[in-house]
């Protein structure tokens, strides 16, 4: 009995105008967008590779340890075609610097920050709206429509359990809804594979199948919702109004209002305090530095020039006193700036904690919205959510710490600080003879070039293994983060199905 009811449901739907309309609309929207999205990704990926090469080159051109300031990158995820998530506005390059702890990533890629004010468009957006709307349109009259036509009475007068009728109708609706969704998803994948030449790796295929599964769950939820409305209302127009109301609430209103309400209830602090600290601590350090210079009677100028320790043009007149003065001076301010970086990071931490609090409150408001759950889990799977980004930042912070520790272990901030910014051994200054020889050598270089010696003239590049490698495994879908939204979606479906079932059992078919 279940089988024949199920097939009847599918056959009936296949003929309807709305099924055709849903199929064509979803397919057309997905095709148009995937075309542009795929192209967009290819361009972005090329830009990324270009950028990555240039940063790698830059990372290699390091002559003294004080110049070590690599730029690390978060690779692009091809799944961003499905869900752009926060990828677009968060940036994916971090410059590791001794004097600051990475808080944000720089955006060398997404070009136009003015477009961040417009919500981004991806396949997920189409699915969030289209699947749910068509789910409702397909199911809002499944019960009361039959009642209006008088067929429900006949159906129930047969020797068929109501549970079977309800389940068959539900299953039929889900299968019918799956057709436009899966068809357009598969065509999109074909376009990406064969026209744009985007290759997904194995783990990404797993993520894509999970996205497909989530889409189906999401669709099933709205089929169930439509059927409940259809059972609660006696007339199909009322059922429709009720279903659309629920749809508006859960898909459009709650996700939007959730964010804004959370931002209203837990407003973020102003960043003025942080800016103030940056400014004040900066001038404090500068005044400490000039105090240090006068107190220790340090003479930094040589031939009227200064500027060493990171600057690309390199002045050095080769005197031992000059080197000793710089060693004292750089050792002094290097520590001050590193301490300040830690203090600033503490300030940022409390700011970020507040942001997280707001975010969690927003998620709490939105947890009743299936659209939010779908978005949340799909962006996590596509590796484009905020958690991914913050994991990358955390990784780059640990990398910075590792570099600092490495430099410290090599004694470059204290006993070997001469090598930190010159690479010269102190022994080279030991004898009168060696001192004079190097001065002679530098003088020749200075005379042969312009008025200063470039670092690349003075030294060779640091060996490649001198700088610790950054090993960040990007592009792995975040299955755990997708787990609880998926579970809640499944729970919601079970709840809605059970509710619809109970209501239908008590339904008056006359």
């Amino acid at each position, binding site marked *: 009995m279940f089988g024949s009811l199920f097939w009847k449901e599918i056959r009936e739907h296949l003929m309807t*105008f709305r099924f055709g309309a849903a199929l064509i*609309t979803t397919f057309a929207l997905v095709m148009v*967008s995937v075309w*542009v999205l795929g*192209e*967009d990704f290819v361009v972005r990926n090329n*830009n990324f590779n*270009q*950028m990555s090469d*240039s940063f790698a080159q830059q990372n290699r051109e390091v002559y003294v340890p004080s110049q070590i300031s690599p730029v690390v990158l978060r690779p692009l995820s091809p799944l961003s075609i499905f869900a752009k*998530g*926060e990828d677009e*506005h968060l940036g994916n390059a971090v410059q590791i610097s001794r004097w600051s702890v990475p808080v944000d990533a720089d955006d*060398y*890629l997404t*070009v*136009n*920050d*003015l*477009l*961040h*004010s*417009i*919500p*981004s*468009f991806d396949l997920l*957006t189409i699915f969030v*709206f289209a699947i749910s709307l068509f789910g409702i*349109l397909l199911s809002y*009259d499944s019960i009361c429509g039959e009642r209006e036509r008088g067929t429900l009475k006949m159906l129930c007068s047969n020797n068929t359990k109501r549970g079977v009728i309800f389940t068959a109708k539900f299953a039929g609706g889900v299968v019918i809804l799956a057709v436009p969704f899966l068809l357009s998803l598969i065509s999109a994948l074909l376009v990406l594979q064969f026209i744009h030449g985007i290759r997904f790796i194995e783990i990404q295929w797993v993520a894509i199948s999970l996205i497909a599964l989530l889409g189906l769950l999401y669709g099933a939820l709205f089929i169930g919702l439509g059927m409940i409305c259809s059972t609660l209302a006696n007339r*199909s*127009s009322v059922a429709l*109004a*009720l279903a*659309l109301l629920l749809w508006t609430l859960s898909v459009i*209103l709650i996700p*939007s*209002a959730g*964010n*804004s*309400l*959370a*931002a*209203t209830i837990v*407003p*973020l*602090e*102003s*960043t003025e305090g942080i*800016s103030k600290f940056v400014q004040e601590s900066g001038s404090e350090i500068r005044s400490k530095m000039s105090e240090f210079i006068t107190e220790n009677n340090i003479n930094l*100028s040589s031939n*009227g020039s200064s500027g060493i320790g990171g600057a690309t043009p390199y002045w050095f007149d080769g005197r031992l006193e000059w080197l000793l003065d710089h060693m004292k001076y750089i050792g002094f301010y290097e520590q001050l700036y590193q301490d300040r970086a830690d203090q600033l990071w503490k300030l940022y931490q409390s700011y970020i904690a507040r*942001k997280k609090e*707001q*975010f969690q409150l*927003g998620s709490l408001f939105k947890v009743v919205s299936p659209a939010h759950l779908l*978005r949340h889990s799909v962006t996590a799977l596509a590796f484009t959510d*905020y958690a991914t980004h913050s994991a990358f930042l955390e990784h780059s912070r640990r990398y910075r710490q590792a570099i600092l520790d490495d430099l410290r272990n090599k004694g470059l901030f204290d006993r070997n600080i001469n090598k930190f910014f010159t690479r010269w051994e102190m022994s080279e200054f030991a004898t009168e003879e060696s001192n004079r020889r190097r001065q002679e050598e530098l003088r020749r270089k200075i005379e042969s070039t*312009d*008025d200063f010696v470039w670092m690349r003239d003075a030294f060779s590049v640091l060996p490649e293994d001198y700088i610790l490698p950054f090993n960040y495994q990007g592009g792995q879908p975040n299955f755990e983060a997708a787990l609880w939204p998926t579970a809640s979606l499944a729970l919601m479906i079970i709840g809605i199905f059970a509710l619809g079932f109970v209501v239908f059992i008590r339904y008056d078919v006359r």
Partner: protein
Amino acid sequence: MITIMKHQLANGLRDSKFLVMAALVLLAFITNSFIYAERYQLALDDWQESIATTTEQLHARTNNLQDISEYAQRLVKPPTVLAFIADGGEDRLPNGILINAFVYRNPSVKSRGNDMFALLPNLDWVFIVGTLMTLMALLLSYGTISGEKRDGTLRQLLSNPVSRASLFTGKYLGLLMVIVVILAVGVAVNITLLLFLGALPLSEQILLAIGWSILTSILCISVILLLGMAVSSITHRPAVSLVVLMIFWLVAIIAVPGLAKLFGENFASVPTPYEVRRDLTKSFEDIWYNAPEGAGSWHSNPEYAFSKPAHLRAETVSRIISEDQKIRDRANDARIRQAETVRTLACVSPAGMLDDALQRLCRTGIHGYKAFHDTAKRYQRQLHGFVVARDRLDSNSPHTVYSWGFGVTPNTFSSLPVEFGTFPRSHFLWESGGLYSEQEVPFVHLIVFLAINLQLAIIAFIALACYDPR
């Protein structure tokens, strides 16, 4: 006709669909008031705080013209009072600019926005009217003709001595009245609450902007109503007209603005930040390495400032800075152009057009950014002019007014004290009417809306005239 209108109005107001939707819209308007009252207060705090900080910092530097002109002021965009009408994604748009008398840089976001949230439309009027109320208009109008046919009442109606023209006009006006009633109640509640919460400083320009916004909103909803009636008079079953209209709504209201961004990004290209950086380095190297002999040298010795190399250096640095600025400006102009292309493409959709029109009226979004950007530039020119004029008065100055950017380069121009009162301040530029001193009424949008209304009315009327009520 009047009877039909009254009947339609009464029907609409009694309808359960209507009541529920009206409650939803009203709720949205109330929520809007609280959200934007808070946001306005925070934005105002930020703005005032930034003015206070800048004032304090500038005040501490009045004893030296060089110091005060090279201090990096952080200009913050004044709060947009009318953001509750058209939000325009203000949270994510740069609203801070680092500026001194020589450079203008780093438009950055300095707001209380949370980048952890995915960007979704905010509960502004554009959303309430463009998304919620258009949906409502569709639900009200999809059955106007085909529904009456199904119920059999259309035949009765037409057998009375009523012309189809007056039937059409009556129905249209009745439906429009329903919508206008909700909009009016919603807006009244919204504005009262905002006034009560002290987040709406009234002025003539602001009232005008609100008035124009209401008019544009009504025209936008009317487009949807007429479309609903047209589809309803073309199809013969309300279920079919509903599906057609819902698909139209999905495509036009939800998909088109997003697609516009996707296409706009590819139509109008902008240089990547990476390319900008490369151009900057290249321009710097071109000038610096081809600079005349001696331009590279520098001494802290005050005597040196009057020498020929010092002047050559000043000239070279000024050229580098101005080229630098040109490259940045070009990139910025390209960005603005691209964003405008996206907005224009989105105008294909009634919601997109409404959004663009209201953003122009309310000076938010890209239009607000442009206004802010232009003001900042104007301020910088004013500041530079002031410094040059001041420097001329000092006979001990070498008159090489230049700077590398935000770092102090001593002994290049006058270092006499400045009276704080005469120093130009950025927020003075905003004071008369603030952002709203220049009203930009989107007449093009209004005319297009009117034209579409007219066209749809004609189509709907013809369809009704040819309609077979049996």
